[in-house]
């Protein structure tokens, strides 16, 4: 798990502890605020076009009356071998080798939507209409994130604007990026601390240490060989022998 990369590459990784997730949705809201994610109106949600870069998938376990709700926060898995990348004819999505991010360039996108079809997690979203931020909502828009127009794909970026800013600050101050210095909005907002974020290639990071000997860590649809960057720590009683 703790592969130290000599070339200074990072592998940004998120750990989701399913035991700690209460399904409150704070991460979803934080993501909307940080990343200018448009709010799908009621009719759009009915048309199955809800648009959350991070969503809480709710699954029911057991039969009535012994029912339990299970929450799985799902966001872009930032696959190491992402199926969405090679299918784009215009390189609108590609692999950022510096941080192991699955990057998306909105301005390059022509809207073939091939990437979204090839995403087994369905965490890519398409802007069917131009986003509406009525006055004075436009004042809260994050200027560091492009407001996407109709006709382009979008998805979770691991708050790449925060990563870049932190990297820049560290460079200016002549030091290396400290562990925990960068937090995506969802991680920052999580009240139960179910989300963790860090560089897996840095053996000293909290993320790498947690993953080193953790029998609970699984990745979503790992059989597909996509090498996701999101680790889920199994919840409920499923990890208790």
């Amino acid at each position, binding site marked *: 798990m703790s592969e130290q990369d000599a070339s200074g590459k990072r592998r940004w990784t998120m750990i989701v502890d399913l035991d700690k997730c209460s399904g409150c949705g704070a991460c979803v809201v934080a993501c909307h605020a940080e990343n200018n994610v448009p709010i799908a109106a009621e009719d759009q949600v009915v048309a199955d076009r809800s648009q959350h870069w991070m969503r809480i998938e709710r699954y029911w376990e057991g039969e009535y009356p012994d029912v339990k709700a299970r929450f799985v926060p799902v966001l872009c898995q930032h696959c190491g071998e992402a199926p969405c990348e090679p299918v784009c004819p215009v390189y609108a999505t590609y692999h950022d080798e510096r941080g192991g991010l699955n990057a998306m360039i909105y301005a390059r996108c022509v809207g073939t*939507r091939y990437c979204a*079809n090839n995403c087994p997690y369905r965490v890519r979203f398409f802007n069917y209409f131009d986003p509406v931020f009525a006055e004075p909502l436009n004042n809260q828009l994050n200027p560091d994130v492009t407001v996407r127009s109709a006709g382009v794909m979008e998805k979770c970026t691991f708050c790449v604007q925060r990563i870049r800013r932190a990297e820049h600050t560290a460079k200016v101050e002549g030091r290396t990026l400290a562990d925990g210095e960068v937090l995506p909005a969802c991680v920052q907002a999580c009240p139960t601390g179910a989300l963790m974020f860090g560089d897996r290639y840095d053996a000293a990071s909290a993320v790498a240490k947690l993953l080193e000997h953790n029998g609970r860590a699984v990745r979503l649809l790992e059989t597909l060989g996509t090498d996701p960057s999101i680790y889920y720590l199994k919840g409920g009683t499923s990890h208790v022998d």
Partner: protein
Amino acid sequence: MSIETERNPWMSAPPESEDEQEQVEHLRKDHLLLDPVGMEAMNQDALGSMTRHGRWTWMLIVVLGGLAMMAGVGWLVQLFVGLGFTGLNRTIFWGMYIINLVYFIGIGHAGTFISAAFRVMGFETRRPIARAAETVTLFALAAAGLFPIIHLGRPWKVYWMIPIPNQRQLWPNFQSALEWDAMAIMTYVVGSVLFIYIGLLPDLAMARERTGVNWRRRLYSALSLGWRGTDRQWALHESVSTIFAYVIIPVMFSVHTIVSWDFAMTIQPGWHSTIFGPFFIVGALYSGVAAVLVAMGFLRRFLKLGYFIREEHFDVMAKFLLIMSFAWIYFYFGEFLVTWYGNLPPEMTILDLLLYGEAAPLWWLMIFCNVVVPVGLLWMRRVRRNPGILFVIAVFIQVGMYLERYLIVGVMLGRPELPFNYSWYYPGLEIPIAIGAFSFVIFFYFIFTVFVPIISTWEVGEGQFLHGLRKIGRKITKFKSDMH
């Protein structure tokens, strides 16, 4: 100036008895190539068909043109507003636009196949129907070529997919199946257009000679490039047609294979299958041959081309259709058997959905259209020789094949790996645009028949020149001479 002489050298021996007379008449009635009436009469008939559109046909043309324009307006709305009025959602990102692309490219297969493959293999049936079939290809491809653009989120940026130097210093990603698609479709369109044009040259020259001095004549003069029909020109014509035929057959296979790879290259359950290439080719030929049958029925009925397009041609095409339906059933069965036996949960979800689930009505209707109707009827000679019934069967197959693509794209896509994302596709604006696309193809097909002879008289003339009757024992039989 009319030519009454029988120009066929092998036809010269007159029948001796009444029985022989009857046999000859029977053969001539059955076979176009044994029934020469002379080039002049044929030319007249073929060119005359350009003015034989009756009042009802013209009304149909106007209605079709109106429907096509309606689709254009729909697309304009979509251009300005975005794809929001379609039925696509956050699980199903490809819908009827892609279905139409696959469907129309499929239709476009048969024309070239009939023309090129039949030519290479020396099937004489192609002669009167090759042009009609190629024209189906031409306009089906034109419609198919529109849909990838209509489908785009930002269609005004479509030129970013063309490999030209640009200020972004970015070349297209040739690892993307869509880029292969763009290249393959471009090759196929160029090949098909040139192929139909090469075959058209002598007929355009003929039309030029038979038209009085007016704009039509100027049009034909320009288009026929001064074709004279010298032996050198014919030799070149023969060679270039052969080159095109041999090249265009593999290109045709590659085009639909690559269209299928758009799906098969993904890891979407139900799509990720090696069988998709040949399966799509067979499906394309299946629907394409049916579309050619529809066109033949139209031409025979509305343009009164009964002399050229005879029951024997319907018979041959119907047999071909039957073979294709067997091949299609075989592939479909293979696809489902593997899925069922493999019993992988994501794939089984789709199988259940199709067989008993929400999609079952569509699936069983498709099976009815694609399997029950053709296999149940086409083995009968009487059906195969009845253009009316064949027309209905062919329309059934169109419905069936459209449904097949609909199930693959619109329905299977709604069952990705994670159950949280399951969805169902309710098309919206796509429906008028699809109707418009169908109208577009039929509209331009009719318009084409107004300007261009839809029957290749030189091909028929050549065929009649090569075929003759011979008496063997007591029976008059037909035979074909080899010119080369």
